[in-house]
């Protein structure tokens, strides 16, 4: 069987076919479609493979580790910054090791198409000292996901699959393999394996360290890594992940230089050594940070290693065939000038979106206190930073709106206002709100509730129907919790409430609630479809 799949969908299908019993994830571009694909897959439905969204990446990864503890194969998926949220579990899971295969798929976003930074998850894997698989094309994405659980079980450690935006969101034909059965429920052989008290953790950590040499040997023998001979040894090339395709694009008839294709880490040391010994210069092509380049170049700055650090390639952003051509001194198109007339077209709030109403009213109120006091968060409402509203002053990480507003209020910026979405609130906002409640910090938290995780395509929000109860449950005074309907006819009412609560010397929560218009349109369509059936 074969099908045209996105790179991330190929990972999803490979995981299903590889015998996975559960996927655990929080939506985040460019990783979202992995879980969505599994949610819509007939086999996954039939076998009841776990596929519901988690509240955040940390809860997702911990649940996946729990499934691995019970002997079954689990995958946790996230975008690169999501791994920061799950990092506590990630680092320690490398030490506990696994029982059933445990795979962490991280989709990095170099060039920050939909992200706050372009951190390279291969660093994190190196930090945790676990193997990484980095596909160069859609078929490899499938094959790696399919094989990854076995690799994880073979060495008893978590395995990372790292993919980047371009491959994540590009389609090609993928050939499927035979469906593997799921594992049976089975407890770990060592009942203390997952108890990371110091004495056990030390033992486990030594075990992880002792496996490093085996991981390297596995990389040496992996079919995903290749040493490809070339006659011209004036240059050698190390091409990682998707960069290998950009290299081949420039040499469709074959590359004249020796090449090491890297798709499994730790680096295949023998292949790399052989290349460096054979060639006068080595060009490193990496989609992300110059990790390999830095290691090879070393502190003593070996000038024969070239790539992003010496300017042969741009220091930041994603690669493309043109950058690679330039680094190889191949001719590129000289028609590079886009007409000056072409204007930037940034994303915008949809017509009719409830966030319009929130920002319209908020701007009016904030003008009375002075600007620079609106702390916001990550979601569609982040677009409020752009014209015409220019309404928010921060967007840093999931949940930081509430906590940064608290810190600013502590410093004397009163009132400080937080604007956060419903899904982001349950992802990472609740604990920060508890801090503010415990200190009765004068902040006004606006939870702009569109009952959906909208920026990533309208996934169900963990917060749905629970926000008032959560706020009251952690101690926000009921008389300072307000729900309003963000519509033009209610702007006056909203203004009054915003104003009153900003003057209150304590924690207030205002919940403007109206369903995301995109989600609503989809729901209406779905209902109509079901009625026709």
């Amino acid at each position, binding site marked *: 069987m074969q099908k*045209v799949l996105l790179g991330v969908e190929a990972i999803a299908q490979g995981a299903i076919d590889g015998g996975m019993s559960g996927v655990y994830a929080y939506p985040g571009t*460019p990783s979202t479609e992995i879980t969505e694909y599994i949610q819509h897959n007939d086999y996954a439905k039939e076998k009841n493979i776990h596929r519901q969204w988690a509240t955040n990446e940390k809860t997702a990864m911990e649940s996946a580790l729990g499934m691995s503890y019970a002997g079954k194969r689990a995958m946790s998926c996230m975008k690169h910054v999501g791994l920061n949220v799950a990092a506590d579990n990630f680092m320690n899971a490398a030490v506990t090791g696994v029982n059933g295969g445990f795979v962490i798929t991280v989709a990095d976003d170099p060039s920050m198409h939909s992200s706050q930074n372009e951190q390279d998850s291969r660093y994190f894997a190196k930090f945790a000292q676990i193997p990484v698989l980095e596909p160069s094309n859609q078929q490899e994405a499938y094959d790696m996901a399919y094989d990854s659980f076995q690799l994880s079980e073979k060495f008893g450690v978590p395995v990372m699959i790292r993919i980047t935006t371009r491959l994540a969101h590009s*389609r*090609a034909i993928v050939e499927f393999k035979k469906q593997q059965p799921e594992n049976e429920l089975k407890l770990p052989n060592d009942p203390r394996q997952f108890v990371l008290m110091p004495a056990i953790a030390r033992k486990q950590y030594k075990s992880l360290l002792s496996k490093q040499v085996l991981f390297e040997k596995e990389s040496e023998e992996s079919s995903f890594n290749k040493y490809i001979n070339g006659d011209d040894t004036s240059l050698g090339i190390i091409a990682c992940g998707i960069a290998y395709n950009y290299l081949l694009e420039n040499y469709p008839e074959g590359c004249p230089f020796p090449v090491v294709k890297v798709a499994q880490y730790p680096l295949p040391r023998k292949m790399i050594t052989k290349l460096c010994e054979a060639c006068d210069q080595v060009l490193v092509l990496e989609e992300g940070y110059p990790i390999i380049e830095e290691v090879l170049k070393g502190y003593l700055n070996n000038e024969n290693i070239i790539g992003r650090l010496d300017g042969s390639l741009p220091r930041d952003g994603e690669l493309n065939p043109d950058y690679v051509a330039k680094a190889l001194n191949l001719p590129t198109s000289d028609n590079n000038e886009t007409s000056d007339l072409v204007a930037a077209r940034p994303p915008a709030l949809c017509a009719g979106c409830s966030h319009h109403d929130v920002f319209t009213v908020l701007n009016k109120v904030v003008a009375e206190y002075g600007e620079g006091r609106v702390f916001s968060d990550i979601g569609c409402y982040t677009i409020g930073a752009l014209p015409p509203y220019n309404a928010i002053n921060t967007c840093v990480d999931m949940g930081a709106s509430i906590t940064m507003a608290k810190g600013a209020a502590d410093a004397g910026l009163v009132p400080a206002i937080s604007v956060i979405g419903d899904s982001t609130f349950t992802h990472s906002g609740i604990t920060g709100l508890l801090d503010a409640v415990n200190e009765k910090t004068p902040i006004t938290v606006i939870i702009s509730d569109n009952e959906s995780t909208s920026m990533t395509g309208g996934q169900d929000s963990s917060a749905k129907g629970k926000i008032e109860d959560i706020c009251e449950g952690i101690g926000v005074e009921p008389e300072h919790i307000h729900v309003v309907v963000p519509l033009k006819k209610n702007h006056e009412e909203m203004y009054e409430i915003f104003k009153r609560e900003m003057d209150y010397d304590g924690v207030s929560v205002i919940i403007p609630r109206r369903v995301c218009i995109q989600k609503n349109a989809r729901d209406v369509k779905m209902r109509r479809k079901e009625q026709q059936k």
Partner: protein
Amino acid sequence: MINVNHLINLTIMKTDIILAGVGGQGILSIAASIGQAALKNKMHVKQAETHGMSQRGGDVVSHLRISDKPIFSDLIPKGKADLIIAVEPMEGLRYVPYLSENGYLVTNTTPFKNIIDYPPIEGILEQIQKVPNLISFNADQIAADLKSKRSSNMVMLGASSPFLNGISFEVLQEGIREIFGQKGDEIVALNIKAFASGKEQSDKILSQK
């Protein structure tokens, strides 16, 4: 009159296509229809898409490559695209640096103005006129005439159909049928009609050259 370069391309059986538009204008449906048709012809396909933040009314682009030989890069190098299909004129102009010397720009002339600093449309169209191989017309008008405003993307696909090497008009129609099949016969019929109208426009413009 048929372009000579176009005949040469026929023997190569490769088309590198940039699809450009604004999030929500339906460029992924164009890409999916071409991709489906290419698969019917047992060709290789790679299609890089824009997902995420830009889909909220930002500029979106898809690199679609079809060939009878294996395809390496998911992205088309600058100056190598055989065809740009633009459902919006400024978005078409944005990607002109990707067009090869003999490549065609097929573009809608109706602007989609969701930014306050949208440049004067006359200027945009003037710049577009400088592209040597150009098919430009008001696809929104044609879709409106068919009482199917939302199918201007299929009008653009029809207008582009003469430049898809190795894929016939009929196979493309089948591709459209399969992509829209789930949405019911009525939607399929509307899209096929829009597709045929686009092809007519293109033929008319080519015959005048």
